[in-house]
């Protein structure tokens, strides 16, 4: 017997079927979003910190990158020592300082990054050119800063450093020329950031002559070699913190463990809603059709066939609702992402909902299996219905 009977039964009560499919759509969209959320932030974070291939971070002992205003130094010999490691192909310091730009008759606060262009992992060049090794007047600006200051490549701007607001004194001021427009990988959407060579930025900050940096980014020849490099650096430089991306992701995972817990709870609830919805619909339709089922059994249709027909109905409802749920879930995820990533302090390129083939497959299999099994009880009831009593109208 073909699945025709089971499927056509769904068309008997179109409104009921449509409402059931919509219910499953919403529940499966929630399930999908929870699956994406469960590991999305973690995967997105890992993708971000590996985006330019730098697998290792060297930070002030006991801190995470940009977690505090602490610095490490002297940084020049440290970078040189790290670069001597045979498995290291690049290493560069980064210093973050607070500075200002003159704009009309006011001072616009900025974040300044001191970088070494030969070993940097915090920006992608979008327009213009990168800084030269001795380009002490060159400046890289992020899009937000460029828009706020009305700057484009070739323009100049006066930067002010070591501003003490209490006594209104300025330690240093100099004119810089925009060489390139960049995307700062770790900036949130509102940050106005600029970059210059490390020694230049050290002079803008309170680090002049101190050879300090906020962190170092190190790239090993291969991901598999990063662990060995980390171990050697830890041994050779116990005064600093050395973490691989795996370490950082682990620490990040601990900080966001509540996301996973929330997503598991909500995902389980959405699965339960799906199961209850399908079981309810199928129980109603099976109870309405007990006479037909008894007829089928009288004609010699096997219990297994009857069960299969009911399960096919459950699977069809699940597939229809699940397919729409994927569209709704992805749309919702995108919308929620724009809200959540607008929080200050979160890198703009991070995402809370990251579609992963394995995650999508897990959600699809979970939904299909549970949705189909939701029909198991009504199917069992249908198959066990006493034939003669049901035909006589005596069945409960």
């Amino acid at each position: 017997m073909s699945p025709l009977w089971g499927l056509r039964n769904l068309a008997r009560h179109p409104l009921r079927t449509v409402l059931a499919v919509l219910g499953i759509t919403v529940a499966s969209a929630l399930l999908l979003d929870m699956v994406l959320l469960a590991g999305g932030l973690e995967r997105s974070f890992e993708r971000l910190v590996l985006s330019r291939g730098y697998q290792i971070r060297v930070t002030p002992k006991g801190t995470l990158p940009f977690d505090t205003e602490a610095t490490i130094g002297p940084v020049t010999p440290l970078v040189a020592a790290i670069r001597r490691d045979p498995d290291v192909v690049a290493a560069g310091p980064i210093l973050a300082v607070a500075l200002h730009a003159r704009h009309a008759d006011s001072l616009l606060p900025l974040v300044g990054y001191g970088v070494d262009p030969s070993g940097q992992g915090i920006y992608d060049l979008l327009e213009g050119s990168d800084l030269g090794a001795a380009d002490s007047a060159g400046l890289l600006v992020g899009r937000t800063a460029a828009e706020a200051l009305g700057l484009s490549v070739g323009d100049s701007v006066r930067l002010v450093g070591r501003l003490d607001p209490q006594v209104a004194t300025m330690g240093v001021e100099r004119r810089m020329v925009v060489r390139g427009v960049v995307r700062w990988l770790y900036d949130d959407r509102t940050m106005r950031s600029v970059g210059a060579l490390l020694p230049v930025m050290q002079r803008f900050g309170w680090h002049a002559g101190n050879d300090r940096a906020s962190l170092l980014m190190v790239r090993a020849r291969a991901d598999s070699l990063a662990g060995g490099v980390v171990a050697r650096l830890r041994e050779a430089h116990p005064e600093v913190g050395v973490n691989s991306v795996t370490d950082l992701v682990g620490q990040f995972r601990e900080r966001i463990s509540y996301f996973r817990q929330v997503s598991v709870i909500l995902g389980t609830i959405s699965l339960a809603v799906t199961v209850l919805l399908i079981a309810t619909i199928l129980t109603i339709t099976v109870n309405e059709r007990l006479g037909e089922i008894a007829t089928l059994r009288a004609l010699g249709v096997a219990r297994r066939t009857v069960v299969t027909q009911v399960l096919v109905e459950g699977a069809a409802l699940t597939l229809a609702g699940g397919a729409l749920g994927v569209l709704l879930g992805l749309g919702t995820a995108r919308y929620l992402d724009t809200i959540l990533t607008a929080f200050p302090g979160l890198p703009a390129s991070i995402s809370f909902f990251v579609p992963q083939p394995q995650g999508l497959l897990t959600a699809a299999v979970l939904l299909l299996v549970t949705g189909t099994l939701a029909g198991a009880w009504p199917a069992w009831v249908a198959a066990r219905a006493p034939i003669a009593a049901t035909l006589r109208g005596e069945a409960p």
Partner: protein
Amino acid sequence: MSVLVARDLTRTYTLHGQPVEALRGVSLDVARGEYVAITGPSGCGKSTLLQLVGGIDVPTSGTVSMLGTRLDQLDDHELTRLRLHRIGFVFQRFHLLPVLTALENVELPMAEAGVPRRERLERAHELLRYVGLERRERHRATQLSGGEMQRVAIARALANRPAIILADEPTGELDAATGQEILALFRQLHADGTTLVVVTHDDRLAAEAGRVVRLLDGRVLG
């Protein structure tokens, strides 16, 4: 040779906590090609007898043998297969599947029996021609008249070439004129060698049968 042998059948139901004796020791033999009518007043146990010999209900005591096979010795799967291949049911209320067309309703028992699609389509067309519904085969059951539905039900009962057709009040839901058409169809079935057991109130239908078994209060009269 007997197609059907029933011995000392009793059937007691519990209805609202009270035992109801629907059959009290009924025996029945039906030979191949025979046309038997079972008659009697409402509640005398006619339909119950049909359900017991058709293997869709279990007697409280007594035995039923179909083509030499004792039904009480079969498990559910075997009994289901026996109903599928050896018995054709025709119900008073037709019991067609409303979401399927006439053709699909006739195909259904053959599909369950694993008959290849092409073969079962040919047979379904042939059977619908036999009952005079070749022009209605694409219509859903709900689009057919009562007489047409009963004819589809008869075609469905014949689908797997059963050894016996068991019909429960086949004209009970039909007007007189339509009942005559079904009567004629049963006459034709009998003439073609089909073994028939028909439960009926309809004297015309009973008069067509080669033998009439009368029930009263769960027992065979005479």
